[in-house]
């Protein structure tokens, strides 16, 4: 410490011997421990990365299709008699026009053979009700369309969309081998192909039967032993008989098979027409006409379509499948960006449902939360960290704030229900109340993060300010707070991101309702993104699955942007000392 008291020079010579076996052994143990630690750390990182990658890939795979929609590009004749029968061109009258009839006519012109009521209804069902609204909007925006024919994109219904995306059933196409002789017409067509044209398809049918038999046998194995119960015995006999009859059908590989709606559908595409096979043999098949092909008895170009899922289990029957197939073949379908997903509110029709309402609801809710949380949270943190006297009361306060951060969010929801809705009588389902509840939830996080940021500012900076005659408050506001700001902002943004993803407390205050209208104010009924995801994930329609994943992607994107903002803000304001 003092110059007069120098430490004596090191005189011990017998220290660590580099070459001794003990030293080497010790070193080796140390290296092993280090290597072990490194390997474990790497493993942990890899496992985490794998989980994350799996999650992301799964969500992207499921969600990206929801950003695209299928549309039929059909020629629509804007018939004045249908949409403007009075001939006034008055928007009020145009709004009343029968635009459904336009869609119907456009479909009819493609498939004139669909005549009976049921078939026509199925045909109309291919197109979404959204397409009708689109036509109405188009005419209102441009009344000059009336009386003209235009190619318009007509949105497919969600079932048709799923079929075109092969989500309803897997479709395999096989080019027909050899010429095919077509005899008979409409419901009783016989197809004869030389050289075992249908052998592969027949084998496939038999494979399907074998699978069904295996399922029956598996079910049989789960039944209790024979003789224990009369009901079980009957069931057992039934299953055994069914399995045996299937076995008989499989046994002869060349025996013809009757195809019902419980087996995969086989369609034969001949030019512009489609036939459905009802009975298949190796060389010969019986079929019914779905869409009549051009007449002709010897066909050289044909193909065989297998729709894997039996018709009864499908959303789209063989008839509609055939229409969609032909529309696609004629180049009248298109896949386009689904702007509706970002422009619409919620809907019962999956193809029309969008996240605009939930996005705006989330934005309004977060705005309320931010406006409440930041001033209150930061002020509380500054007071507690810099000004509050250290006594039992402030200790108690600190413990309670830390505990509040760990309270389950649903409790805050119940609190919001009891206080804001019941006691203060604020509107139900409103972003105002949602924001208030989330503010309560996020406040402890912001206070704790802000206090940590304030505490991290070196005391020497405050001392320096006090030393030149700044008051305590000036020292805090001129020097400590600016230096703590990056940390405070990071804490705030992380808190906000937390609030953005919060669902449970919002369920309690009624933000879980089915709300179609896009909210315009913080007192209007709204829902938020995570609640929208929760609602959609609960719906049985397959089409909503991809909407759910799509909404999750948007939510993740939102979070990513917020976290990026946190990083950028921190970089911008960070000062080193």
């Amino acid at each position, binding site marked *: *410490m*003092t*110059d*007069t*008291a120098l430490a004596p020079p090191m005189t011990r010579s017998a220290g660590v011997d580099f070459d001794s076996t003990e030293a080497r052994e010790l070193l080796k143990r140390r290296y092993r421990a280090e290597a072990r630690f490194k390997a474990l750390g790497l493993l942990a990182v890899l496992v985490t990365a794998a989980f994350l990658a799996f999650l992301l890939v799964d969500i992207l795979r499921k969600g990206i299709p929801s950003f695209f929609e299928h549309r039929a590009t059909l020629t629509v004749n804007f018939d004045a008699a249908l949409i403007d029968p009075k001939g006034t061109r008055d928007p009020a009258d145009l709004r009343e026009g029968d635009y459904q009839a336009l869609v119907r006519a456009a479909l009819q012109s493609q498939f004139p053979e669909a005549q009976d009521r049921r078939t026509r209804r199925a045909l109309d069902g291919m197109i979404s009700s959204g397409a009708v609204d689109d036509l109405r909007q188009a005419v209102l925006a441009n009344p000059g369309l009336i009386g003209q024919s235009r190619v318009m994109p007509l949105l497919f219904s969600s079932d048709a969309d799923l079929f075109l995306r092969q989500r309803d059933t897997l479709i395999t196409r096989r080019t027909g081998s050899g010429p095919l002789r077509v005899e008979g017409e409409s419901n009783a067509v016989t197809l004869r192909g030389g050289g075992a044209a249908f052998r592969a398809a027949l084998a496939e049918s038999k494979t399907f039967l074998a699978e069904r038999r295996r399922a029956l046998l598996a079910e049989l194995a789960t039944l209790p032993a024979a003789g224990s119960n009369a009901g079980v015995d009957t069931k057992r006999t039934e299953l055994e008989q069914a399995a045996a009859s299937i076995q008989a059908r499989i046994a002869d590989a060349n025996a013809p098979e009757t195809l019902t709606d419980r087996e995969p559908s086989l369609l034969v595409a001949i030019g512009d027409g489609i036939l459905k096979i009802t009975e298949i043999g190796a060389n010969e098949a019986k079929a019914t006409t779905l869409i009549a092909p051009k007449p002709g008895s010897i066909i050289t170009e044909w193909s065989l379509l297998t729709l894997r899922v039996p018709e009864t289990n499908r959303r789209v029957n063989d008839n509609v499948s055939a229409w969609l197939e032909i529309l696609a073949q004629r180049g009248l379908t298109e896949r386009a960006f689904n702007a509706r997903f970002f422009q619409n509110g919620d809907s019962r029709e999956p193809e029309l449902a969008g996240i605009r309402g939930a996005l705006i609801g989330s934005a309004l809710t977060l705005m309320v939360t931010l406006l409440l949380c930041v001033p209150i949270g930061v002020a509380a943190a500054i007071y507690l960290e810099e000004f509050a*006297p*250290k006594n039992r009361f402030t200790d108690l306060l600190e413990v309670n704030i830390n505990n509040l951060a760990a309270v389950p969010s649903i409790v805050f929801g119940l609190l919001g229900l009891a206080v804001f809705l019941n006691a203060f009588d604020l509107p139900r389902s409103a972003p105002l109340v949602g924001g208030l509840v989330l503010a309560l939830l996020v406040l402890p996080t912001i206070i704790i993060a802000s206090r940590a940021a304030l505490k991290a500012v*070196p005391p*020497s*900076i405050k*001392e*320096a*300010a*006090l*030393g*030149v*005659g*700044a*008051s*305590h408050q*000036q020292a805090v506001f*001129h*020097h400590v707070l600016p*230096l703590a700001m990056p940390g405070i902002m990071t804490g705030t943004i992380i808190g906000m991101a937390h609030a953005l993803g919060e669902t449970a407390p919002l369920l309690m205050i009624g933000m879980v309702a089915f709300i179609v209208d896009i909210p315009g104010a913080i007192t209007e009924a709204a829902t938020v993104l995570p609640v929208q995801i929760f609602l959609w994930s609960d719906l049985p329609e397959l089409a909503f699955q991809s909407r759910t994943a799509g909404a999750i992607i948007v939510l993740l994107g939102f979070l990513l942007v917020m976290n990026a903002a946190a990083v950028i803000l921190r970089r911008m304001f960070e*000062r*080193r*000392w």
Partner: protein
Amino acid sequence: MNDIAPLAVPPEQADAPRPKITARNINVHYGEKHALKDVSVDVPEKGVMAFIGPSGCGKSTFLRCINRMNDTIPICRVTGDLRMDGRDIYEPGLDPVLLRARVGMVFQKPNPFPKSIYENVAYGPRLHGLAGDKTEIDEIVVSALKKASLFEEVKDRLKDSGTSLSGGQQQRLCIARAIAVRPQVILMDEPCSALDPIATAKIEELIDELRTNFTIVIVTHSMQQAARVSQRTAFFHLGKLIEDGVTDQIFMNPRHELTRNYITGRFG
């Protein structure tokens, strides 16, 4: 001023300048710990007084009493009579903020604000309203930097961060920052302990220049430094002031056995 009993002055110090700071029976408690015991000392005006002593002897504590920095520690209690120019600096109506404008402080570790060099120096004058407009502040900044003999090194980069300077430069910036509010007294708490010998030499040179205009109190661990820069020295031990006097006398001819032992390196 008249109600202060003069300390017994040894004959060789009869011509000592009039005291700037007078301390009588100062006691400091940190909670249960009795850190300073009955310290009475006079700090003469214009000149350098050094406080020396082993670690934990209370010299820094006493230094921090002079600008009431101890007020920021809640558990710290100061009793006794501490006056500057005869005025009780612990009188209830006196705001320590004003006191600190007249008693500047330089800390052990250089602690410039993480702002520009200019802002570092201009902060104090602005705070106390010492300048009316921009040109006056510019003048104050330049003159403070010149007095701290830093101006020539930084005149082209006043906008650079104060933390970008070297350790010695940072400490001189801190001195400039303290000078800029025109204090009468500058307290230095081991100002060179974080610096290399060359930077230390520069600071010591600077202290020697400043003593014509300021009353400087310096706490130091280095007895060589105390001997080099100070005219008076006080030796603290275990919270007590053992002796104080003209530096030469303390080092050449200490009156007290403890002082002699410390100076000759028997302990510490």
